């Protein structure tokens, strides 16, 4: 590899380089200036902003870097395309929000002397995620996934304030270790069958006539285990409620949005580059016969959302309830992939944007309330509607949006999923998903019932958020309502972002 080629390749991964540099700077800064920890979050935001700039710069640019051989079909380990840039930008934006999120978190502020570690680990996760969404080589995918996982294991138990932190961490670690082991074994089988680890090169090899399809299916199910664990789809969801409940709320919010998005990006890229031969003019993907993704995903998604919604009905802890709700949302999101069309893919991207807004908003308010009351139990929300009017109304709007009622953004997200399903003539699946929405209404409204309908026995202290906190909530709340009635920009953006390199 000569110097000019190296420079060119490095220019493809500028965002990743910026994030790594920021990670190193944070660690060094923390080591050298012990007393100025307050500056670290600003460093983090600055690093993310620069990375975001380079990502936006990469839009409408396609290319592939770090090819292992200089053969004709020169596909490398990293792919730059709009699809990847969309998710990178998504991760970076969510991360910026998470940094501000951490400002208000009492759990994080209590461990102030370890702030450097905290941000270093957050950046480890971010780096893992943005590599994951653009990696097109199984080796790199595995490494990015592990970088993401290892950082998040530690973060889940970061505060060590309560037993449940460490326990959440241990559970996350064990389930994570097992699923990555399964995934690695799947990768090794695929490698053995095709002799390559590059997704683009695997594609034509899988079309070979004399392939042992059972082995391919077995390997793919193993790989899916690893991804399913990241997106917390049933039956790999067992860790989700425990980790979400046990981890600090900031981390829970981060895991439920960014980490899930990275997992979905990986799944979509894996299916599309490895298993799709071509996209027909009406937007439907032609799959290689080697493995029936559609059947697997239909079962998984229906199972995931039904299980998530029905289990959420019985939860008394709001964080745990939102964990099950996030499982259910993974099910809805999978529906966008089930249809195997560009239309479904657009729906997923739209849904993710809206999901991030409303989910982060809900978690943020839960955190502000927990800061004051020290509790996340739904029973303790009784009468909060009058004690914290602004927080109550905002939480109500976020929950209504999560249910998917107009005129909120959540409705538009769901609408696009259903439009994709109906267009693919999967009416039965659409009906099951819609019925699931009705079920989900019950547990979201239960929170509203406690806040507004029930009178609390003892008067609650008023909870008054600071101006900065109100501003942060409004940043999430206004788009949630606005995109419910005017969603053109997001849809246009998503439509421009569905192109993967080579398709």
């Amino acid at each position, binding site marked *: 590899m000569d110097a000019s080629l190296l420079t060119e390749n490095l220019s493809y991964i500028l965002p990743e380089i910026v994030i790594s540099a920021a990670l190193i700077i944070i660690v060094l800064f923390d080591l050298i200036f012990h007393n100025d920890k307050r500056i670290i979050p600003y460093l983090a935001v600055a690093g993310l902003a620069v990375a975001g700039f380079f990502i936006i710069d990469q839009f409408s640019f396609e290319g592939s870097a770090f090819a292992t051989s200089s053969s004709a079909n020169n596909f490398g380990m990293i792919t730059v395309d709009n699809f990847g840039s969309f998710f990178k930008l998504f991760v970076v934006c969510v991360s910026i929000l998470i940094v501000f999120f951490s400002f208000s978190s009492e759990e994080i502020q209590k461990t102030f002397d370890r702030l450097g570690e905290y941000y270093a680990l957050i950046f480890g996760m971010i780096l893992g995620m943005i590599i994951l969404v653009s990696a097109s080589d199984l080796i790199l995918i595995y490494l990015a996934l592990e970088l993401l996982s290892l950082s998040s294991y530690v973060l889940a138990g970061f505060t060590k304030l309560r*037993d449940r932190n*460490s326990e959440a961490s241990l559970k996350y670690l064990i389930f994570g270790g097992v699923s990555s*082991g399964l995934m690695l074994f799947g990768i090794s089988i695929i490698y053995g069958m095709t002799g390559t680890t590059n997704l683009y090169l695997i594609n034509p090899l899988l079309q070979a006539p004399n392939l042992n399809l059972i082995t391919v299916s077995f390997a793919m199910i193993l790989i899916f285990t690893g991804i399913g664990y990241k997106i917390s789809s049933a039956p790999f969801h067992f860790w989700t409620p425990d980790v979400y409940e046990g981890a600090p709320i900031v981390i829970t919010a981060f895991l439920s949005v960014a980490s899930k998005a990275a997992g979905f990006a990986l799944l979509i890229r894996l299916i599309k580059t490895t298993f799709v031969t071509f996209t027909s003019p009406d937007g439907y993907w032609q799959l290689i016969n080697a493995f029936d993704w559609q059947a697997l995903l239909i079962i998984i998604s229906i199972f995931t959302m039904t299980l998530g919604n029905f289990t959420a009905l019985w939860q008394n802890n709001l964080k745990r309830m939102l964990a099950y709700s996030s499982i259910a949302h993974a099910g809805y999101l999978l529906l966008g992939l089930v249809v195997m069309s560009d239309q479904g893919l657009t729906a997923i991207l739209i849904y993710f944007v809206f999901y991030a807004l409303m989910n982060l908003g809900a978690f943020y308010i839960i955190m502000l309330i927990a800061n004051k009351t020290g509790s996340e139990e739904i029973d303790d929300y009784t009468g909060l509607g009058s004690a914290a009017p602004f927080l109550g109304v905002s939480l109500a709007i976020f929950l209504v949006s999560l249910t998917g009622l107009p005129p909120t953004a959540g409705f538009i997200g769901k609408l696009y999923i259903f439009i994709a399903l109906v267009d693919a003539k999967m009416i039965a699946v659409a009906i099951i998903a819609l019925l699931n929405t009705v079920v989900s209404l019950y547990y979201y409204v239960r929170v509203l019932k406690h806040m507004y309908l029930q009178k609390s026995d003892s008067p609650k202290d008023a909870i008054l958020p600071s101006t900065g906190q109100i501003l942060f909530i409004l940043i999430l709340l206004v788009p949630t309502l606005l995109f419910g009635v005017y969603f053109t920009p997001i849809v246009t953006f998503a439509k421009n972002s569905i192109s993967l390199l080579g398709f």
Partner: protein
Amino acid sequence: MNSIPIEYYLILSAFMFTVGVTGVLIRRNAIVIFMCVELMLNSANLTMVAFSSYLGQSAGQIFVFFVMTVAAAEAAVGLAIIIAIFRNKLTVNIDEINIFKW
């Protein structure tokens, strides 16, 4: 390498993998569970190396280096978490670490 057919390696690694999965499922000591996870990773490594040699490629062996590094990092993180738990609970039996239902 010609002397030992590839099937032997694959059977061995499949066996190791099964032992690993079974161990994770039935053992109750967090450290043993961890060792079983390592066993799973290593069985994948073995497959990779065997295929790499069989196909006459180097990619698989390079992959194994990465996996070994990751496994080491994972072990470090894992043991740290287990120690954190042990300090609080004085046990590493996962049946007794049960604030949440397993």
